[in-house]
């Protein structure tokens, strides 16, 4: 873990109110694994914002941020050359299997970015991405560039499948099955994915989010209920997660 201010190399608007940041942080990138997150400190705000890692290169990290509140709006004002104070990499990230295994990735909205490193890990990932509308779709070309097959779904039908992403996902699982499945997105989507993984007997992992303070396991703020041998207990998104086996997540 490191805490440092790093230079932003660039910010790109990739969808309305959604920004992609490239950060010059080779030392932090060298420690990062898919599914981990960085904790971003912003001027004028007390608590850091947890943001998942979208890409890991030798030179640094890429993160994608949607403006959702005052903190992320402040972040959207940062530009090339500005310094960004990061704590990270945090969390455990995704457990990965051998690259030839048949992996299915399911992303909903701003839950999509942490899945991209998995598309780079697996040779031919099947990726299902759901957005509200065509203009909100992000990273589809990045997934394709990583060698993945992308199936798009939009709630308003403006691109791809008209409806929820879990519908084409179920068709795929029914026809082809999968060795391992990873999902990140809104809670109703995660709940549906969890049910499908159980129905089609696929090992699955869900990446969760929670209101968070420290990011390192000290404050016990980001509690989520998790099913264990001793019953349901609170685990913490920052230190025990953000990724949990799907069958253990209580949604």
């Amino acid at each position, binding site marked *: *873990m490191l*805490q440092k201010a790093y230079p932003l190399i660039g910010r790109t608007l990739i969808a309305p109110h959604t920004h992609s940041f490239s950060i010059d942080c080779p030392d932090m990138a060298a420690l990062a694994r898919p599914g981990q997150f960085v904790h971003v*400190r912003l001027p004028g*705000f*007390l*608590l*850091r914002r947890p943001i998942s890692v979208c890409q890991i290169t030798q030179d640094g990290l890429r993160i994608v941020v949607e403006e959702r509140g005052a*903190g992320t709006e402040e972040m959207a004002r940062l530009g090339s050359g500005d310094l960004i104070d990061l*704590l990270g990499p945090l969390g455990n990230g995704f457990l990965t299997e051998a690259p030839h295994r048949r992996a299915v990735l399911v992303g909903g909205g701003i839950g999509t970015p942490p899945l991209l490193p998995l598309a780079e890990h697996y040779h031919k990932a099947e990726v299902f991405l759901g957005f509200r509308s065509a203009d909100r779709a992000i990273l589809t070309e990045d997934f394709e560039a990583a060698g993945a097959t992308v199936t798009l779904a939009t709630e308003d039908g403006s691109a791809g499948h008209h409806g929820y992403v879990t519908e084409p996902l179920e068709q795929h699982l029914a026809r082809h099955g999968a060795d391992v499945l990873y999902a990140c997105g809104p809670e109703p989507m995660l709940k549906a994915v969890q049910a499908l993984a159980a129905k089609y007997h696929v090992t699955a992992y869900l990446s969760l989010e*929670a*209101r*968070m*303070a*420290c*990011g*390192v*396991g*000290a*404050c*016990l*703020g*980001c*509690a*989520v*209920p998790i099913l264990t041998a001793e019953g349901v*207990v*609170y685990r913490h998104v920052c*230190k025990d997660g953000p990724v949990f086996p799907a069958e253990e997540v209580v949604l």
Partner: protein
Amino acid sequence: MKVDMRVNIAGVTFKNPVITASGCYGFGGDYTDFYPLSRLGGVCLKGTTLEPRQGNPPPRIAETPMGMLNSVGLQNPGGHAFVTEELPRLTGCGTVLIANAAGSSIESYVGLVELLEGTAIDMIELNISCPNVKEGGMAFGATCEGAARVVRAVRGRTTKPLMVKLSPNVTDIVSIAKACEAEGADAISLINTLLGMRIDIKTRRPVLNQVMGGLSGPAVFPVALRMVWQVAGAVSVPVVGLGGIEKWQDAVEMMMAGAAAVQVGTASFYDVYAPVRIIEGMEAYLEREGFGAASQLTGIARK
């Protein structure tokens, strides 16, 4: 000349006056990637109860202007796991270890401090001020009689130095501090969090599942400073000041108000190096200003 940073509280020597606050530092293992525990004057470990506690349902955290609310609710593995699993990890860590002991009844406080006898714990901080639990906690700390009952019961059952952590959510904190002192408290620490709340205007519901939570962070510093000033003027045992300290200047102010040492809590959440920066900043200040010892700061603003 090198400044003597040591302070003595209830017979325990701290290598410097900066202690990490309970609830903000886990059981001491979460920040060791950044600096060794031996840099700190002391560590107040996560609030522990005799029996394990699950804590409150989420959301447990809300941001506020220059502060935050929490309603963690004393999630902890219980006294037995604390002694057998957490404490052994801390052997030889080179700093003063303070157990934060909480309870829901007099018997549970007593049971816990008895478990701590003969352990490596250097001092007990009696938590009669947690605002996030339904029974005990702040209920004991809200009145002189309640505070006196717990301190009296515990005092008779522990040989460890006993510090009592007070709640600011009271009408007269001075009388409660005096009641604790009269029952044999060796030191007083204050303040725990201030009770607060927030509402999410999009969902039209309180942000915290438990509606109310404890406010901490720089927003509470002036309130904490005022209460430390009042209590330090009324008791003769050492006072440890906490509440919103994020910079060395805050720590110096707190000691000038009468604190023998300070605790740093929420600041670690946004700057992991905050406790170390405070130690270094205070030492440089003392050297610049010609102080021979950190302890000379205590109460200097009262003279």
